[in-house]
């Protein structure tokens, strides 16, 4: 990490303000008017559209090169399986983390 102290605080501030505006938006300004269907439909997929892509490179090629790490691939698969089947966030984190810890001993 090569950011200055000022840059880090600016980042936190920018993300904080942006996030607050998103949260305040309809409740604060738009009132009880309904959102258009197409917007609701797109927003519904925002988390599953961002999070998997965000971590995919760190799972597939952890050090930025082409070398795959079986421990990471298996741990990722276990996390997704447990999270999908159980819907339990904490169970999925511990299952995936435990798998990674065991396989990378």
């Amino acid at each position, binding site marked *: *990490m090569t950011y200055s*102290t000022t*840059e*880090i*605080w*600016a*980042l*936190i501030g*920018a*993300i904080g303000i*942006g*996030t*607050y505006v*998103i*949260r*305040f*938006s*309809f*409740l*604060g300004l738009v*009132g009880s008017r*309904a*959102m258009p269907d*197409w917007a609701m*439909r*797109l*927003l*519904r*997929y*925002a*988390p*599953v*559209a961002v*999070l*998997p*892509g*965000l*971590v995919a*490179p*760190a*799972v597939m*090629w952890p050090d930025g090169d082409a070398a795959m790490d079986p421990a990471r691939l298996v*741990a*990722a698969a276990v*996390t*997704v399986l*447990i*999270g*999908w089947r159980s*819907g*339990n*966030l*904490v169970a*999925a*984190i*511990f299952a*995936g*983390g435990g798998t*990674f810890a065991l396989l*990378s001993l």
Partner: protein
Amino acid sequence: MASSRPNSYYWQGLRAAAPFIIAIAPFSIVFGVLAVESGLSIAQTIGFSFIVVAGASQFAAVQLMTEDAHFAVIVATALAVNLRMAMYSAALAPHLGMAPLWQRAIVAYLNVDQTFAMSVARYEAEPQLTLSQRLAYFMGLSTSVLSSWFAGSIFGAVAGQGIPKDLSLEFAVPITFLALASGLLRTVAHWAAAASSVIIALALDWVPLNLGLLIAAGVAMAVGAGVEIRNGRTQ
């Protein structure tokens, strides 16, 4: 009857969300530890949790910061992760929209996945609740959920200093995200969006400034919406 007073609705909310104190603590502690491990100061780490109050986007930002991504890309990615909260804001508006502005401003700050989901469920089950009862219930939920988020972040940030740097804790972030996302894979459309996101992000990993991720996210949202329309699912 005592249960009609706003105060008792506060306690009902606090008790209803009490399980989240335990569920959120590991998540917030891991954030505190990882942020400090990644190079943020204790004050910055705690400030992050108090100013942004959105776990997934905070993890996303820290992950990109360890990759020295461009400032604007980090902000855009974090906000993309939080876009779903516009949906929460829209869903709360019919129930709390008539409250004074300052109260809505506080609700907006406390509007996170768990407080949103539990409050709307209660409001829909009991439409006869008064505005002050609804607000009291929301504040009770928020007390449980956010005290755990704040306290865990502080604990993790302070404890993180004592953890040796060579532990490969950095993989905790991907694990956390996969756990979050996989719990949301309820329909074919969600799977299609997630798969598109992974494939495009990997294919465009060479694109500078992590812009490939934003392209992947945009296309994946459209894919999810497209599959939903094809399957004729209106939620």
